[in-house]
């Protein structure tokens, strides 16, 4: 008999769907079917079954080839590298559990390093903006049960967060929203005609990089003040109309993504979006939420928050935490050549960082911890394969609205493969020995 595991949490995006059902083979060792997940999520589960998955740490040899080594050797290399470095950088942490994140922070503190997560290249600007002006937000269930105005700005959930619209925003029938999508008006702001934009009642095809102007124009329109004929390529009539749509709702929300966080103006875009939301609260109820990418990038920010008081790009090289994005953020540290060891876990900077930063990683003593072979593992000196968090081991993760959900273990990891937590625990223990700390 096959066995079905219910209430499984999908370890892909910040939507953190927790209604996945996974059908296992008779012996409980193979994933046969994944129900309820989106195409990307389902693929995550099936990927864990990949035959070619490395099961032992791999050390790069002088000729560029890899040699399998034991976990003991991997722990030793990692501990020596971190303990001997003057200023190691530990980056990633966004696709693993909060428990692993916590151990990583302790290692950073012990070694006087820097710790950073993927917000540095994603929603870090959002975090800077909320440090400037705050953020009126809510949980996704509030959107489901109350919202009748949905705005997606600079994001494309149809492809990046595929179940977001059906679980939380446009389509679900909630307590006060019994008519589902019929009770809602949807605004999408995007320079492209995306699949999300096609679902919108109002699509504002903003000129690329002009989001800031459009946001400020909406704030102006709210007050009924004068606007030029077009702003950011949008005729003023459309802007006044959009402002009226927002004001006339009972409960509204702005979801925003990388289209505004990493385009021209960066955090200033988000400042303006948050101020727009605040001002809308003088007319009705309005909220705003970042569409966080990695399923637990929010979680690492929270752990850093309660342990050090800052959500990302934390420099503990002096024994206490300092935070100054642009100075203490990963890419800047790499490009300035300020760090002498690089440890990456649960993310793939090799695929996403500027080439100069990736080149810098390849020159440093470096360790990449990841269940699979990725561009990062290929530029690192040591690749440590680990169990897949959320599939082969449980652990806590935070959804994009900061709701913590405890991921479930569905199957065992391949024999002999350590989890992130086990590997980090062993590294921490060894570093304590090397440093003579109890």
């Amino acid at each position, binding site marked *: 008999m096959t066995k079905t595991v219910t209430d499984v949490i999908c370890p892909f995006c910040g939507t953190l769907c927790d209604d996945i059902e996974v059908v296992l083979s008779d012996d409980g060792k193979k994933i046969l079917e994944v129900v309820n997940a989106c195409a990307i999520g389902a693929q995550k589960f099936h990927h864990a079954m990949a035959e070619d998955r490395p099961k032992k740490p791999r050390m790069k040899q002088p000729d560029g080839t890899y040699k399998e080594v034991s976990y003991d050797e991997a722990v030793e290399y990692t501990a020596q590298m971190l303990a001997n470095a003057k200023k190691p950088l530990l980056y990633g942490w966004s696709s693993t559990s909060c428990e692993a994140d916590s151990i990583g922070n302790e290692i950073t503190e012990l070694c006087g390093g820097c710790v950073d997560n993927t917000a540095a290249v994603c929603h870090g600007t959002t975090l800077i903006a909320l440090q400037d002006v705050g953020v009126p937000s809510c949980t996704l269930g509030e959107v489901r049960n109350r919202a009748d105005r949905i705005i997606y700005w600079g994001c494309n959930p149809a492809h990046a967060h595929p179940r977001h619209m059906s679980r939380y925003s446009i389509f679900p029938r909630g307590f006060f929203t019994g008519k589902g999508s019929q009770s809602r008006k949807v605004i999408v702001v995007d320079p492209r005609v995306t699949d999300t934009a096609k679902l919108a009642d109002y699509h504002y095809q903003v000129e690329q990089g002009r989001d800031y102007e459009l946001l400020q124009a909406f704030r102006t329109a709210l007050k009924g003040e004068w606007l030029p004929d077009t702003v950011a390529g949008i005729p003023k009539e459309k802007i006044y109309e959009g402002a009226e749509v927002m004001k006339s709702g009972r409960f509204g929300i702005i979801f925003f993504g990388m289209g505004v966080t990493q385009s021209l103006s960066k955090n200033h875009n988000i400042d303006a979006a948050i101020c727009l939301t605040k001002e809308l609260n003088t007319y009705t109820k309005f909220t705003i939420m970042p569409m966080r990418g990695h399923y637990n990038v929010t979680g690492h920010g929270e752990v850093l928050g*309660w342990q050090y008081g800052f959500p990302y790009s934390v420099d503990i090289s002096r024994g206490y935490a300092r935070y100054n994005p642009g100075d203490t953020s990963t890419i800047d540290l790499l490009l300035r050549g300020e760090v002498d060891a690089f440890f990456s876990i649960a993310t793939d900077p090799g695929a996403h960082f500027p080439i100069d930063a990736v080149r810098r990683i390849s020159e440093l003593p470096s360790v990449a911890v990841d269940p699979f072979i990725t561009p990062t593992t290929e530029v690192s000196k040591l690749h440590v394969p680990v169990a897949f968090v959320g599939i082969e081991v449980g652990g806590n993760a935070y959804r994009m609205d900061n709701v913590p959900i405890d991921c479930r273990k569905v199957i065992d990891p391949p024999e002999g493969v350590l989890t992130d937590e086990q590997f980090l625990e062993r590294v921490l223990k060894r570093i304590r020995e090397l440093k003579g700390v109890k």
Partner: protein
Amino acid sequence: MTEYLIKNGFVFDPVLKLKGEKADVAIRDGKIVETTEVKKPKVIDASGMTVMAGGVEIHAHIAGPKVNSGRIFRPEDKLFNTVPVKKNMRAQGGFSIPTTYKTGYAYAQLGYTTAMEAAMPPLFARHVHEEMRDTPILDEGAYPVFGNNWFVLEYIKNREVENTAAYIAWLLRATKGYAVKSVNPGGTEAWGWGLNCLQVNDPVPYFDVTPDEITRGLIEANEYLGLPHSLHIHGNNLGNPGNYTTTLDTLKAASGQKAKNKFGRETILHHTHVQFHSYGGDKWANFESKAREIIDYINKHKNITADVGFVTLDETTTMTADGPFEYHLSQLNHLKWVNADVELETAAGVVPYVYSPDIFVCGVQWAIGLEIALLAKDPMRVFISTDHPNAGPFTRYPRILKWLMSAKAREEQIKAFKQSDKVVNSSEIAGIDRELDLYEVAAMTRAGPAKCLGLSHLYGSLKPGVDGDVAVYDFNPEKEHTPDQIEKAFSSVKYLFKRGEKIIDNHEIVSHGNKRTLWVDVKVNENLQVMRDIQEKFMKYYTVTLGNYEVHGRHFIPNPFALEVDATR
């Protein structure tokens, strides 16, 4: 385990009625024992020092989503106060919203060994527990919020006390919560639509139940279950001029009712941070103290307890599940505003605030807090708190003790106000010459809160049999002290023991202890209707499944301690 004998200290303990008599305190196997029961103890010479039980914090926001929002959105709160890694200690930072490690260390340094997180949004219970796990030394519990929970609103509207009680029992278990908390009952649900319930008879939109009915319903359910702590309420209309009448209306919900429980608790309603609820006037210009009206009512009604919420005149970070209040505050001071509404349950807001001694209203708020404590007749029912960090950080407790124990210190502060005449005219503080003694302080910070929490069998005294939580302060009560010497002495304990383990030795932290998470495990009769309602709401309205709601596992609660209650009938 090592035995300890703390010799020759001046002991203050309201339970043992010790008012500074010289006595020895013995600890064995984590508990206080008779001095004859220790064989080869390590002796701590406490001569010339003050000895008390470990402090018990009844109301502070120290762990969870809104606290962390405060930390994350206020990098400026870490300026000039970070402490690097030390032997036995992790890195620390933060003033009004310290990191979890600093929270644990700082409470210990003040002589506190137990603290309660005052508001846990049930959906975020895991977050609260993760932070408590990372807060060393202290035994901690958290109060889940019920006052705006849809289940509760519906059951109370239908007057179904058994169902309210069964739901409370279920939620305490699911969240590993300690007590029933209610914040701005009904008003926070109204905030879902940008509205509020300012008075106790304002109906909640859609749910058509009033704050007064919610409060009475929760008291009834709390006593039906016989929980260790009473209902813990933050009433409606917080922070507004003239709100003292609303507070009196809230307190009236307790009239004529008696406590029913096996934990030695005699009260049925705890009103928290009453300082924020004791305001007269009808606008900021004629703002005035109504502390006497509120404390007179509390003095007369023996089934009510309160904590004060002293304003410490600092720059701080306000945070509460009273969502509409925080919005209102941000409109008032125009500083940054975090809001976080939680589906079916509650909301929260966070706004920085500066209690400036130059501002008349802040001066009166300062006076109100002190008036409440100084006019209180029963220190076992009025407790010291700053509603950390709302009226100020808990690290200012020594300064509050200075103000409470020295009329001269209060006089100096009044003189230092920019508008001291206005403050004096709008309050009674200048006319009060009472100075609290350490016996009263021990009641307000230890014995009283422990009793009100139903925890006097563990904490709050030095009676043989309770936990070995002992604080030794380098303070000789027989000598004369300047106000600043009082503040200094209570800022850093000389020795601290937690469950028999030495945590602080000669002012230095030497151990993280072995902290516990307190929660209340209530058994009730099987209630099929409530279970059906829970399943329905999770199916239709929650965005997490029922199977993913309950907090369990050692990664959240490594060391749980359940207080068991049998409410089956």
